[in-house]
C-alpha cells in the first residue's frame, strides 16, 4: 500500500499544477482586461479579484460548499454534466484554489501589462503585427519575468492552502487529502514526527520556490543598470 503522505503530496502537486495552468489561462486575459480598462467599474472587479487576500479562507470555503452542493445551481449543473457530486471532489478543490489564488496571478500580470503600456504595442501595429502577434511576440517576451512570478506565486499559494480545502474538499485520500491537511491530521493524532517531516518539506519547498522567483527577477535589474552606465 502506498504511503498516505506520498499520496497527499501527489494530490497536492496535481492540484497546484492544474490550478496554475487554469489560472494562467483565465488570469492573463483578466489581467489584460483590467490593465486596459478605464471604466469606473474597474475598481469593483479589482476588489473582487483581491478579496481572497483578506477574506478568511473559511468564509470563501463556506460559500463555495453551499454553491457546490447539488441543491444549488452550480452544483446541480455540475452533477448533470458529469454525473458526479461537485462538493468533496478533486474538481471542487481545484475550482476553490483557482478562486483563492487568483490575486497572486492576476495582480503581477496586471501590473506588468500596465507598466508596458501602449507605446511598444503601437510600434508593433505600425510594423504590421496584429493583436495576437503583438501579444505573443512583444508582450509575452517582455513580461516573461512577471509570468514566472505569477505562476510561481499561484502555485506556492495553492500548495499552502488549508481552510478552503477543508471546507469544500474534506479529507478523502487520493482525492482531496492534500499536504496541509495531512499535516493537520498528524498533529491531531499527536504524531509529531510525521508532522515535522511534512512541515519541514513545505517550508523548504516554499523557500526554494520564492528564492527561485527572486533570482529570476534579478537579470532585468542588470539591464536597467547597463542602460544607466551608458548614458
Amino acid at each position, binding site marked *: 500500500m502506498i504511503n498516505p503522505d506520498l499520496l497527499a503530496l501527489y494530490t497536492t502537486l496535481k492540484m497546484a499544477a492544474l490550478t496554475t495552468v487554469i489560472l494562467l489561462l483565465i488570469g492573463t486575459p483578466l489581467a489584460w482586461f483590467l490593465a486596459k480598462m478605464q471604466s469606473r467599474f474597474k475598481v469593483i472587479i479589482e476588489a473582487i479579484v483581491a478579496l481572497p487576500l483578506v477574506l478568511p479562507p473559511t468564509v470563501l470555503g463556506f460559500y463555495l460548499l453551499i454553491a457546490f452542493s447539488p441543491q444549488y445551481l452550480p452544483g446541480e449543473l455540475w452533477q448533470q454534466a458529469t454525473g458526479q457530486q461537485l462538493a468533496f471532489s478533486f474538481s471542487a478543490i481545484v475550482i476553490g484554489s483557482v478562486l483563492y489564488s487568483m490575486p497572486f496571478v492576476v495582480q503581477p500580470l496586471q501590473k506588468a501589462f500596465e507598466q508596458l503600456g501602449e507605446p511598444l504595442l*503601437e*510600434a*508593433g501595429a505600425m510594423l*504590421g*503585427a496584429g493583436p495576437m502577434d503583438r501579444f505573443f511576440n512583444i508582450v509575452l517576451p517582455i513580461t516573461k519575468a512577471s509570468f514566472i512570478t505569477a505562476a510561481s506565486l499561484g502555485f506556492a499559494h495553492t500548495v499552502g492552502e488549508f481552510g478552503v480545502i477543508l471546507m469544500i474538499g474534506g479529507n478523502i485520500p487520493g482525492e482531496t487529502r492534500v499536504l496541509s491537511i495531512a499535516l493537520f491530521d498528524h498533529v491531531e493524532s499527536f504524531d509529531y514526527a510525521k508532522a515535522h517531516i511534512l512541515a519541514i518539506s513545505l517550508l523548504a519547498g516554499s523557500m526554494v520556490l520564492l528564492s527561485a522567483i527572486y533570482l529570476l527577477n534579478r537579470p532585468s535589474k542588470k539591464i536597467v543598470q547597463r*542602460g544607466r552606465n*551608458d548614458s
Partner: protein
Amino acid sequence: MTLNLNFKINLNPFNLSIKHELSLQGITGIFGHSGSGKSTLLRAIAGLERNINGSIILDDIFLIDSNDNTFVKAEQRHIGLVFQDTRLFPHLNVLDNLKFAAKRCQNRRLDFNEVINLTELGSLLHKHVDELSGGQKQRVSLARAILTEPKLLLLDEPLSALDRQAKINLLRLMLKVQRELQLPMLYVSHSLDELQQVCDKLLVLSKGKVIGYGGIHHMIHQLNYSQNETSADDFIHQQTSLSLPIKTLNNGHGLAVLSLSSSLSECVDIYLPALGEKSVQISEKTNEQTLRCFILASDISISLSEPLNSSIVNHLSAEISSVNIKGNNVLITAKCNEQEFFVNISIFSQQKLALRVGQSVYLQFKAGAVRTYLY
C-alpha cells in the same frame, strides 16, 4: 499619391479639425507649435487614433469613414511610422528588431541587406538596443519602418532628442532614403530649420486648424507675416528661405558661391562660408545641384547706396515690395531677381531712410548670415 483629410478629433482644449487634400510627393513637412495637433494628425493617419469623426482617404482607399464605420487597423494600412521615442523592442537586438519588420512585410521587394547598407547599420546589428546612442536608435527605427515597405512613411519629430550632428546625419539619411526608394514622407516637426532643409511642401497647423499648405519656401515666407499675430511662445524666426543652384562649394577664398538667377536679368551671386571637405564630398557623391539655405530677417540690413567699401560680401540691388509695421518692428519685403527677401529693421531706421514701397535699395548681409543646416 493623394491624401484626403476631412475629419474632426476632440482634443482638449480644442478640436483638431482638418479638411484638406495633400498631394504627397517627396517629403511634406507638418509644422506647428506644441499642442497644435500635428502629432495627433499623424496618429490619425497611422490608425492609432480611434475617436475620429469624418474620413481619411489615401489614394481612393478609405482608411477611416465614420459614416459607415470603416476603420482600417493600423497594422493593415501599409503606413510606416517613426516615433519620436524610437520604440525599439527592448527584448530584441538590432538585427531582430529589423527582422520583426521584414518578416511581417507581405510582398517583399526591398533587399534586407540593401536597407542595412542604406541606413549604415551593418556594424550595429548584434548590439542590444540599450547600447545604442540616440542617433543610432533613430536610424534603426527608420530602417525598421522602411523594411515594412510602407506606401507612406510618417515621421513624428524623429530628431527632437538628438544632438546637432546626429540631427544632420539623420536628415541626410531621410533625403537619401526618399530619393532611393521614392517613398513619400510626412514629416512632423516644430523646427522650421529642419523642415526647411528637406521638405518640398509644408502644411502649417495652428490650434487644430490648417493655416497654410504650399511650397516650403513660400510657406515659410507666409509665416513671416503671421509672426506678431501669434503669442510670444509661438515665436518664429522671420527669414528668407532659398533653394539656389550651386556655382562652387569652395572658391578657394573661403567662400561658396550660389547663383540667384532669373529669366529677366543677369544672375547675382550669393556668397556663404565655404563648406568643409567632408560636406563637399557628400554633396558631390549625391550630385547635389542646389543648396537649401536661409537668411534671418534680422541678419539683413538696408542701405540706400551700394556699400562697395565694406567687408560684407553680399549686397543685392532690390526693390521694396511691402512695408509691414508692427509696433517698433518693421518687416520689409524687397525683391531682387524676382526673389523676395525679408528684412527686419527698427521703426527708427525705417523712418530715417524713409523707406517705402517701390523704392530701390541695397540689401546687405555677411556670408556667415547665409545659413545651411545640412553641411
